[in-house]
């Protein structure tokens, strides 16, 4: 998949996500592939891409956790005070919908099902063809300063600091 194709694919998914805002109470939504790549978002810029990718990665891991014990996750509703996350598992990734305040839950379930069905081919293709996300390497730290050599009390017959000793004898 070329870069242009990837952009077009993400834009198509984003268009579908925008339809979720027909429901009142929806703050936004985003989609991550199983490999953790954020492929589309329709959510205020308050949430940075890196934050959404990391959140999506964790939410996908929840699905994997339940799958490991034999439960295939289809959807989840997570409550955080006044906010809720509606998660919809789709082939190759996960649709995450952020809810702020009251929402018509049956309508949201239906909307999520429809959007999930619509974007599933694109998400599956992205998962299959796009490389996994590259995480930024942590900033280079300055090399640690060499520790000062330990000062050992000099003893008669002690070897020079650079000499190696084995069983009390100096060896080359």
């Amino acid at each position, binding site marked *: 998949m070329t870069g242009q194709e990837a952009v077009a694919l993400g834009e198509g998914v984003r268009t579908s996500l925008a339809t979720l805002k027909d429901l009142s109470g929806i703050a936004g939504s985003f989609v991550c592939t199983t490999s953790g790549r954020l492929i589309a978002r329709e959510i205020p810029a308050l949430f940075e891409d890196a934050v959404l990718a990391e959140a999506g990665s964790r939410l996908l891991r929840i699905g994997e956790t*339940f799958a490991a014990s034999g439960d*295939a996750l289809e959807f989840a*509703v997570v409550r955080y005070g006044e906010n809720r996350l509606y998660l919809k598992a789709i082939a190759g990734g996960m649709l995450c919908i952020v809810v702020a305040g009251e929402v018509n839950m049956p309508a949201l379930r239906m909307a999520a099902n429809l959007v999930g069905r619509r974007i599933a081919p694109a998400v599956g293709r992205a998962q299959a063809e796009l490389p996994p996300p590259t995480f930024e390497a942590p900033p280079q730290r300055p090399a640690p300063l060499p520790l000062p050599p330990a000062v050992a009390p000099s003893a008669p017959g002690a070897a020079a600091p650079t000499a190696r000793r084995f069983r009390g004898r100096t060896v080359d």
Partner: protein
Amino acid sequence: MQARGKNEGRGEVTGSAAAGASVRGFSAQLRGASLWDLVQMECLARSHRSVQVVGEGGVGYLYFDRGQIVHATTAQRSGEAAALEILDWTNGSFQSCERPWPTQATIRTSHEGLILQAAQLRDERSAGSNLVAFPARGVAGDELDRYEELELTELDETEVETEAAAEAEAAEGAIEMRSPVSDESARTPKPGANGTNGANSANGANAGRAELGPVGDFAVMMRLGPNGAVVSNRGGNEELAETVAYSHRLLQLTGELLGFEKFSAVECGFVDGRCIVFSDGDEVVTLRPRPEVNMQALRDRLGL
């Protein structure tokens, strides 16, 4: 509770050997009746007879005369204490028998009073266990009134499970108590927490507690402590505890990352079931409702 007996005709038979002397009347075999119901039937009939009750606590005898329980004995007790002991039993059989009649009545309390006392004792015993507020099923009234303090505790499987529920759990392989806490709890029957067969609760003085709601509705009820240890468990296993503990942590971190408030609850829908996990103070409660359960009240309660 199974019941066997004969309708000997009201007031026709008196005397100590009356119960066994008559051959007239119907014999009956009831399944699923509660002991309290049978006692009330016996008192309503104003019969004069002794009845053998075989329950989880052993064998006991109740002596009925003119609509009251006038005497009772068990292996350890006699009189009112024995009657209360017997009335606490939830499973067993109930059949008329021939017993020497006591020389004098040892119980003066009415049968209603005895049943109320038994219900109160049962409630008091169960009050010390972990309580979680979540909605009862089928309780009419205002929305807020639908939520009662329901007991989330380990239950004796043989006592609380219907055959269908037991089969369902066996199919799921869910009943596997591995932790020491669970094992110990599983061995300890808690009569205060009636199961799906809890006609006692429904008909007795503690009907308002709706204890049979969660037991019947949830295949799994598990409570994890702050460190992930299983505090109480019914129907869950170690694998579920690990899954929930890790998922709960991931959800906490996700919420913090997105700047949300503290995690409070999650409902997970699976291909073949559902699971609800919610925070209760420092502890985490997991429920696995049976497929036929209407979840709306619980969702409303948890804001899901």
